[in-house]
Structures are given as C-alpha cells and as structure tokens.
C-alpha cells in the first residue's frame, strides 16, 4: 500500500495553514487577525500549487482510500481556489471580529473535508470527510450568533445530522452487502448482492450526498441557511461543499454494479426534481440570497445530469468537472456582489448600474452565466451537460433541463432589471460604502467566468 504523505501534500499544505493560523491567532491582537487569513491563503496557494504539480503525475491511490485522479485534481483546485476567494470576501466582512481567526480556520478545515469527500475511495473516509466538511459549516452558519444565524445553524445542523446518520446507515448496509467499505472491493462485493438491499443502501447513502450537494430531498437547509447566515458563509456553503459532493457522487456511480440499481434513472429523477423545484421556488423570491439559494438548488439539478449518465457517455466526466468549476466560479461571483452591496432586497438593487457600473456588469455577467449564456463558463458546462445527456440516451432529461433553463431566466432577469433603473433605491449604499475587496472579487470572477468560457478548450484539455 502507498502511504507516501507527499501524495497528500496539497491537503497537508492547507492543514498546515489551518493549524498555524489557529495557533498564531491565539497570539495576535484583535485588529491584526488578518494575518491568519494571509497564512490560510498561503496554505491554499501552496495547496493549489501542489495540486497543480500533482495533476501532472500519474493517477494513484494514497492510503488505500484517497484516490488521486483527474476528478481529485479538479476538485482540489476548484475547492482551494474557491476557498481562497471566499477568504478574500471574508477578510472584509469579519474584520476585527473576536473570532476572526477561527473563522478562517474553520473555512480551511471545511475545505479540507470537502476535498477528502471528493477524493474518498472508501465509504468510511467518505463518512469521516462528511463530518469534517459539515461541522465547521454549522459553526460558520451561526457565526454571527444573531437570531437568524443561530436558526440557520440549527437547521443546517439538524438536517446534516439526520442525513449524515441516514448516510451512515447506508454505508453500514452497503458494507454488509459488499463485505468491505473501500470502493474497489465494493465493486466486486456488490456485484452479486441482492439488488433490493443494495438499492436501499444506495438511496440511504445518497441522503448525505444530497445534503452536501443541496439536491432534493436534502435541500431544505439551503434557502434558510443562505438567508440566515452571513453572506460570506452563504457563499461558502452553497459553493464549496457542492464540489465535493458531485465528485463523490460521480465516483460512487462507478462503484455500483450495472443492473443492481437503476442509478441513472434514480439520479435523473432526483436531478429533474431538483432543478424544477429550485426554479419554481425561486420565481417569487424578493430576497436575493434566497433567490440565489434556490438558484443553487436548480444548478445542483443540472450538475446531477452528468452524474446520471456517468459511464454511459464519454462526455459525462468533462461535463461534470467543467460544470462544477464553472458553477463554483459563477455562483461565487454572484454572491460576491451581494457581499459587496450588503443588501438583500431585490428592490435595493435598483440603480446599481448607475452607482457602480462595473459591479453591476459583473452581476449581469454572473447571472447570465448562471442562465447559461455563452460565452461564460457555465455555458460550456451546460453544453457538455446537454451533450452528455443526449449521448447517454437521457434526452428527456436534457429537455427538462432546457425548459428549466428558460424558466430560470425569469428570476435572474427579475434581478437584472432593477439594476438598470435610473433612480437608485433608497437603501442602495453609496459607491463609497461598497466593500471594495468583495467588489473586486466580483469583478474578477466575472472576468474569470468569461475567460474560462472562452478558454474552455484549454481548461478541458488539461
């Protein structure tokens, strides 16, 4: 077995960043805790670098349970990069908070858990990673300790706990049927197992994954947490864990024996339900964060499409990986605008284009990106997703996705329209009151979505 810690260098970098950050946070004056953010960022940058180097090496398996393959590479880079941006967003928002350094550390740990979730090659690692990825999230959700934040934390926690336990029971059941917990052995072990029991185990396992992915029926926490928690945390919990969840889902799709469970149909139904529910519920939202929350649910539905056709189309994997990255970037950009503006009502965005044209443009690019307008990155992702669905003989799912994409235009436009009104809303902050850092990140991500869309060939080639 391979127990070379160098294979886990990216994770170790981030862990080191977290630990060093935690320790130094203990000795830093309150106003200078940003140093922790710098340390964490350094860890993330090192992690990204290490992941980039690792991506050039052949696929391997570390510690018998940590798969290192393109999925892991992409997940690592996406998670760490997204976390890096979120650190940037947070740096302005939680400045000089008594728990500022803990905030950064928790984010780093959650990111670490997400990567482990994505790379897990063993159900038990998956379960442990679930804990690691979730627990900091609960704390982050309640970080503000206000009424809404704590309620969000409670809901997040209760949903996470229940679905985690259901997932654990699924793990147990699959273990009992397959005599092992590692994917490789399960692949053989499950092939002769009774189909019904495998199906129950898979669905139970799906519970935890759906929770992390924000997919039906594990989506209930998404809107409430997104609205209740602070915007930065909302950004984090709707962006980063999904990356890990879809990677894990895709891996599990490869574990299941053909014929035992109609996995494609199961995921397709979940996907269709997720995207439809997310879109419908987003229609009449007045709160931009709730709107974005439902938008992330519908995006999760689209992301499930390549998972459904995993193994049935060569396009499935590139579609998933690209879409995940594109989604993370675009979603982050939209939330960054919310962080920068600091307002939740749709009407409060009236006249943003006048006051902060670049920020408004970024918002438009990100929202249209979420719609799937070329040449943004999500378009390329959606294209691959449609292609994978049609190629995998799930054309009906592609059609459902198309209809949903069109329907989603509604609520994105509901946000875009007031932005271009001439009269600024009464609650719109002055140009000077916008969070500069967040605004810069918003603009940067908007540019990056365009660049990633136009340069999607380069991204897909690697």
């Amino acid at each position, binding site marked *: 077995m391979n127990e070379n810690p160098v294979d886990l260098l990216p994770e170790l970098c981030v862990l080191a960043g977290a630990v060093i950050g935690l320790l130094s946070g203990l000795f830093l004056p309150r106003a200078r805790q940003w140093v922790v953010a710098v340390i964490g960022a350094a860890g993330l940058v090192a992690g990204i670098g290490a992941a980039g180097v690792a991506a050039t090496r052949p696929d391997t398996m570390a510690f018998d349970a940590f798969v290192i393959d393109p999925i892991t590479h992409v997940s690592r880079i996406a998670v760490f990069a997204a976390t890096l941006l979120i650190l940037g967003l947070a740096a302005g928002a939680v400045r000089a908070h008594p728990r500022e350094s803990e905030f950064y550390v928790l984010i780093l740990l959650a990111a670490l858990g997400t990567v482990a979730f994505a790379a897990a090659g063993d159900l038990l690692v998956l379960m442990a990673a679930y804990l690691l990825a979730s627990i900091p999230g609960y704390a982050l959700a309640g970080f503000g300790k206000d009424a809404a934040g704590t309620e969000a934390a409670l809901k997040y926690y209760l949903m996470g706990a229940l679905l985690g336990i259901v997932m654990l029971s699924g793990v147990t059941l699959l273990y009992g049927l397959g005599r092992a917990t590692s994917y490789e052995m399960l692949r053989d072990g499950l092939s002769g197992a009774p189909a019904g029991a495998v199906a129950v185990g898979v669905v139970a396992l799906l519970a935890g994954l759906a929770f992390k992915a924000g997919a039906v029926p594990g989506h209930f926490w998404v809107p409430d947490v997104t609205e209740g928690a602070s915007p930065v945390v909302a950004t984090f919990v709707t962006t980063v864990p999904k990356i890990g969840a879809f990677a894990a889902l895709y891996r599990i799709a490869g574990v299941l024996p053909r014929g035992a469970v109609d996995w494609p149909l199961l995921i397709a139904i979940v996907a269709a339900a997720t995207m439809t529910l997310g879109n419908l519920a987003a229609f009449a939202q007045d709160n931009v964060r709730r709107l974005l929350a439902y938008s992330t649910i519908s995006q999760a539905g689209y992301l499930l499409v390549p998972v459904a056709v995993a193994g049935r189309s060569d396009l499935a994997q590139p579609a998933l990986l690209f879409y995940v990255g594109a989604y993370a970037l675009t979603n982050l950009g939209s939330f960054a605008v919310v962080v920068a503006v600091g307002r939740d009502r749709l009407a409060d965005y009236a006249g943003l284009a006048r006051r902060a044209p670049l920020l408004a443009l970024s918002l438009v690019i990100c929202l249209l990106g979420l*719609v799937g307008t070329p040449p943004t990155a999500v378009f390329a992702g959606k*294209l691959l997703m449609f292609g994978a669905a*049609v190629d995998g003989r799930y054309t009906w799912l*592609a059609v459902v996705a*198309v209809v949903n994409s069109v329907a989603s235009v509604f609520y994105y436009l509901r946000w875009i*329209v007031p932005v271009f009104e001439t009269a600024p809303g009464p609650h719109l902050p002055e140009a000077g009151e916008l969070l500069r850092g967040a605004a810069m990140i918003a603009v940067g991500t908007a540019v990056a979505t365009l660049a990633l869309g136009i340069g999607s*060939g380069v991204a897909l080639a690697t």
Partner: protein
Amino acid sequence: MLTLVIFLPLAVALGLLVLPRLRDTAVIWVWIGACVVDLALVVAIWVGYDGGIGYETDVRWIPSVRAGYHVGVDGLSLPLLALTAVLFLACAVFSLRQTRRVRAFAALFLFLQTVCLGLFAALDLLLFFVFFDLSIVGMYFVIAGWGHGDNVRSALKFFLYTFLGSLVLLLGFIGLYLGAEPHTFDMADLTRTPPLNGSPGLAALVLLAVGVGLAIKTPTVPVHTWLPPAHTDAPAAGSAILAGVMLKMGTYGFVRIAMPMLPEPWRRYAWVVIVVGVVSVLYGALVALAQDNLKRLIAYTSVNHMGYIVLAVGAAGLAAGDVDARRLAVTGAVTQMVSHGLITGALFLLCGVLNDRGHSYDMDRYGGLARVAPVFAALTVVGAFASLGLPGLSGFIAEFQIFTGAIGSGTGAAASAAAVAILGILITAALFLRVLHRVLLGGPGELTGGVTDVRGSELAAIAPLLAASLVIGIAPRFLLDVIEPASAAVVSLVAR
C-alpha cells in the same frame, strides 16, 4: 482580416467603456467611425473574395468536443456580413441625436455588431450558437434599456421566447455533434459528411430541434408572437437591427446548417417547410393588414417576408424539382435576406422618426404628413414600395426569384404553394397603400402638426439603405454573382 472585422466593434465598445470622459457626441462619432472602418473592411473582403470559403481562420477552441474558432466567408455569408455592416452604420448615424445613456447604447450596439458579424462568419456550430445566444442578450438590453411603452415586458417576452428557441437549437446542434463520426461541431466537416445518415428517425428529430430553434428566430407562424411587441417597444435603431439583421440569423441557419447538414430529412420534410412558409406569407400579410399600429404592421410584414424565404428553402428541398430552378429559389431567398434587411431597416428607422415627433405609432392619429414632411414622405413611399416588391427595388428581385424558382422547380407541391404565396404580394400591396393613405396622404390628423421633416442625420442614415435597395433592384448582378455559386452548392448539398 475577418477576425478583425468581427471583433473590431467589440474592441471599440470596450474602449468606449474604459475611456473615462468622452462627451456624448464624441462617443457617437467614435461609434460611427468604427462602423465606417468595419464597413470598409467588409467591402475590402468583398472585393478580395474569389469563390469558395474565403478568409478562413480555424483555431482550436474546445478540442475535446472538436469545436473551434472557425470563421470564413462564402456567397451566403458575405452579403449578410455586408448587410450587417451597412445597417449598423446606418443605426449609428441615426443615433446621432441619441441622448439617453449614449455611451452604453453605443457600446451595446457595437457589441451586437460583433455578435451579428460573428454569427454570419461562423463555420462552427458552437461558435454560431454563442453568437446566436449573445444576440438575444444584447437585444434584450437594447429593448429593456432604451425602449418605450411596455418595453420591460416585451423585452422579457423576447428574451424568453428566443432563448427557448436557442436552447432547442442547441439540443439540435448537440444531436448533430453526436451524430457525426467523429463527433464534431465543425460546420465544414458536418457539411462534408452529413451526420445521422443512417438513422432517419434521429435525423428527423434533430431537424425538428434545429428547425424549431431557427423558426422561432426567423420567425414563422405560429412562433412569431414575440416579434410584434418586441418591435413595437424597441427603440428605432434596435428594431432596425432586430428586423434587419437578427431575423436573418434564423433563415441563414436554414441555408447554412439545416439544409446542408441534414439533407435527407430536409428533403423528406420539405413539404412541412413549404406549408409553414406559405402560411407565414399569407398569415403575416393578413394580420399586418388589420393593424393600426405602424410598427406592429411592419413587424408583421416581416413575418410575411420571412415566409417567402422559408417557402424558397422548402421548395429547394424537393429533390424532384429542376435543379436550376431550385438554385434560383435559394438565390432568391438569400437576396431576400439582404433586401428585407435594407428595406425593413429603413422602414423601422422611419418609424423611429415618426415616434420621435409624434410619440405614437397609431396611424389613425396621423395623416397628410406629405405636406409637413415631404422628405419623410418620399422615403416612406420608397420604402413601402420596396417592401411590397416593386420592380426596380431589391424586394422584387428577391421575390421574383423565389416565386419563379419555386414554381419553376416543376413539382406540383412547390408550384401550387408558391402560386398561393403570390397572393401575399397583393395583400402586401394593399396594406402598404393603406399605410400611405392613412399616414402620408389625405388630410391632416391630430398629430400631424407636431411632425417635422427628417433631419440630416436621419436622412443620412435612411437614404443609403433605400439607395442600396434601388441599386440591387436595378443592377443585381454584383450581388447575385456572389450568391449564385453558394446557392448552387446548397442545392447540390441538399440533393445528396
């Protein structure tokens, strides 16, 4: 060279956005300058074009799905590129008096120009689609941002409707991609070896998706209802571009994508296309006849005019027909795209003049405008006659070829359909005369007093469009020489 043509406007747009302090007039002059340069480049391309696919650029873009930045011009795209450059220049000149958020307006139009040029030059399905979709986004903002009346709703309707069409089109493209062996989005490859040759059912479905997507954009009956409100509430320049250039994206798609890449199902379902075309012709004309709103009326005549094109491309798909006649029909269709762009562009700009003065499109509130605005009246008369297909103007050249080609192909279906469609020109004649009578001639109406004649910039924008129509109407060879080889190619491709 071609890439420069395509992206020059975008570069200028970005420059306009970035450059901090430019006065509004200066912005528009920069805009006009960019359009002039672009037009000059297109003319240079036209002059230098010598058959086949010219000015080709093929750069890998998304190699994993074999999509590339592949652009080039041929006899189908060159006229439309030229049309695009001309119309955008006209709109820029027309907007000299624009005062509302000029910089954004100019940037948006330059962006749209890049999009439209890119679409017509694209030789890759994905690239085509990118531009197709972006055109919707750009036009949405034009309507929502600078429109009038119920513009937000119209813009939304436009966006949703055409966006749905574009996604259906995307599904069709994906079908083409997956049907090709090896999988590719490259139009040249797809044209060379039509995909899905072995599976007629799938090919028919793909054609359905592509056809519906393009039909919505074209638009044909019954998926045309986004058009009237979008036009009515759009600013004049926006309407001109929407009708003049963007409707062509649909019909261009038929000759560029649907026919050469899906020849077998196209032939099989040509009769459907023909029926849709004929219905569009008659329906569009009749509904236009009943309109009181001038802009809506012109919008419906667009449905009618696009119907001729659809009829022609349908007739070209009836393989039993005479080859030369079918070529004539396709040539007519492409000519009609150019012609309609010029004429309708001019008419919409004229509508803009009217609305600028009277703030209404209601024809019954005007009357006798020839007295107070003789130049406006003269331009409108020329535009109206051009639109109703008067010989000597471009519409006739196009429609005559379409009718003659469709009937002359000799198949009973095409001939009878075209014979019925001829009724369209009669109804169009009647309705345009009604327009002239209600708006220009006769006694003055309630709003006539406030109408002043066209100003210099407006005249400079509109007159060249009509002059171009006149030139094509009298001496069409320079245009037809370019189109004919391409339409011959299309006909031979669809016959495979």
